[in-house]
């Protein structure tokens, strides 16, 4: 694919800071040098146009330069972050990866996997000579699905000039949100700051050191930050905006962030690996109501479920059935309520708990439980029950050690006037380990 438009634009940004990786500050000029160097590396490694190439790493200058080179070379790119090393061989097989690239002490290394390409969708995309992208759904509620995108289409929207900021790449290298941040920032002359790790200390330290203005993150990470009050140890005054997405935001978490960071704008985002990141506008600063759309996007609500049709939608899954209907609509499985053009996401339909025919939304119960002073974090899910089909179960992280029966009693008393009887947890367990994945998304399996 020709990303000449992007390369030309980046050239005009010359000495601006493009990327900060650890302590390295890389200008646009330096990043373009990396891009050209890696174009040569691809030639030397005989990586041909149309081949499916996995690239491992994070938002380092070498990796970003190679990604740009692979796009120009017309490859189908399979980004692999360090967090999925344990799944790597399986993911590479699903994506029919033919070559792998990694950086051993910053040195480009490419090796072949002797794989033939059999999948119809992959061969169709290769025939167009377009660059491609394979992402894997996070698997927080099941097995990861391989999602194939036409990169030419996905990158089209970045040709439109937009505002940008000094933005942290909190979302990982193999996440649609992370890649969206990368291309949006590069296309508009902004700066990407990649922290040493995504733990609270390194994220806050990077915000302070490199004057991050925009933090795209998840409600789980924000909740953790609030609970531990880690943000108070750092000067985060450079922050102008926090965007949140990937899971439902508890109202209590939103309120506390608003109170703790009154000068920071909060904006909800909406996107799916299958559709890309869509334009979303919050009703106001403290609102969970959002309008979703933008150019090339249509939405509709059927049976309280959100459906989306998007020009940047994926080509399809490599290892699951085609989810689009005949008119190209995609069922997001997100249950919503509406108020004019605004929607509020209640939760995933598959996560709804059915207690004797009555619906319970985990987020609604979590919302209440997070107000309890004993509770640090919580996950609510359904547990099978012979009487009622399912009942509500909760797994909790607590601030101080607490007897389980005591916690259960306190939960029941606390919820009495706030939830209906069928919503109140029947089973309670306490867990020491975090309740979210290494991508800071609640694990509801």
């Amino acid at each position, binding site marked *: 694919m020709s990303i000449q438009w992007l390369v030309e634009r980046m050239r005009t940004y010359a000495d601006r800071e493009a990327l900060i990786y650890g302590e390295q500050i890389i200008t646009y000029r330096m990043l373009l040098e990396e891009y050209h160097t890696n174009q040569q590396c691809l030639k030397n490694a005989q990586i041909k146009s149309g081949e499916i190439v996995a690239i491992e790493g994070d938002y380092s200058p070498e990796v970003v330069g190679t990604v740009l080179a692979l796009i120009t070379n017309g490859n189908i790119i399979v980004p692999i972050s360090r967090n999925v090393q344990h799944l790597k061989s399986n993911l590479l097989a699903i994506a029919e990866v033919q070559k792998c690239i990694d950086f051993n002490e910053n040195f480009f290394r490419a090796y072949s996997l002797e794989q033939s390409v059999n999948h119809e969708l992959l061969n169709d995309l290769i025939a167009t000579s377009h660059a491609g992208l394979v992402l894997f759904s996070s698997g927080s509620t099941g097995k990861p699905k391989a999602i194939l995108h036409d990169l030419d289409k996905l990158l089209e929207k970045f040709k439109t000039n937009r505002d940008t900021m000094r933005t942290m790449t909190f979302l990982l290298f193999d996440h649609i949100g992370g890649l969206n941040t990368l291309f949006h920032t590069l296309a508009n002359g902004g700066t990407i700051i990649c922290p040493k790790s995504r733990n609270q200390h390194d994220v806050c330290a990077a915000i302070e050191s490199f004057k991050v203005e925009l933090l795209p993150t998840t409600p789980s990470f924000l909740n953790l930050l609030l609970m531990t009050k880690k943000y108070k140890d750092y000067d985060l005054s450079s922050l102008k905006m926090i965007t949140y997405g990937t899971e439902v935001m508890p109202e209590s978490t939103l309120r506390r962030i608003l109170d703790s960071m009154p000068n920071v704008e909060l904006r909800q985002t909406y996107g799916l690996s299958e559709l890309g990141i869509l334009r979303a506008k919050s009703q106001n600063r403290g609102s969970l109501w959002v309008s979703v759309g933008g150019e090339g996007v249509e939405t509709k609500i059927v049976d309280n479920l959100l459906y989306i049709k998007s020009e940047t939608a994926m080509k399809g899954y490599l290892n699951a059935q085609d989810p689009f209907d005949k008119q190209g609509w995609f069922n997001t499985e997100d249950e919503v309520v509406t108020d004019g053009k605004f929607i509020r996401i209640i939760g995933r339909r598959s996560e709804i708990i059915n*207690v*004797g025919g009555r619906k319970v939304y985990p987020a609604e119960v979590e919302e209440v439980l997070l107000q309890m002073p004993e509770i640090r974090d919580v996950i609510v899910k359904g547990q099978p*029950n*012979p*009487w*009622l089909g399912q*009942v509500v179960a909760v797994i909790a992280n607590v601030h101080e050690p607490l007897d*389980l*029966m005591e916690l*259960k*009693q306190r939960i*029941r008393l606390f919820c009495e006037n706030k939830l209906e*009887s*069928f919503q109140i947890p*029947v*089973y309670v367990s306490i867990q020491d380990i975090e309740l979210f994945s290494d991508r800071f998304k609640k694990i509801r399996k």
Partner: protein
Amino acid sequence: MQINIETCLKALILRNSLIEITYESIDENTDLINDLALDSMAIVNMFADIEAEFQIEVDIDSIKNPILEKFQYLKEYVLEQKKKGG
């Protein structure tokens, strides 16, 4: 042990009851549904509490006696499950 089980069981019933009752008003013949107005949610909660308190599993499919019709049957069931569990 039997006295302890009886005491604990009554405490769990009191905790889950939807009407005002006293410890003394629960006797061997007390009908948990009709006399104590336990609804399905209260019963489910009570069984969950029994499982946690006595470290047993309440297996609905294996219950032979109508354990909710008489407190005595419930008590016997819990004792039996405790013995099985060792």
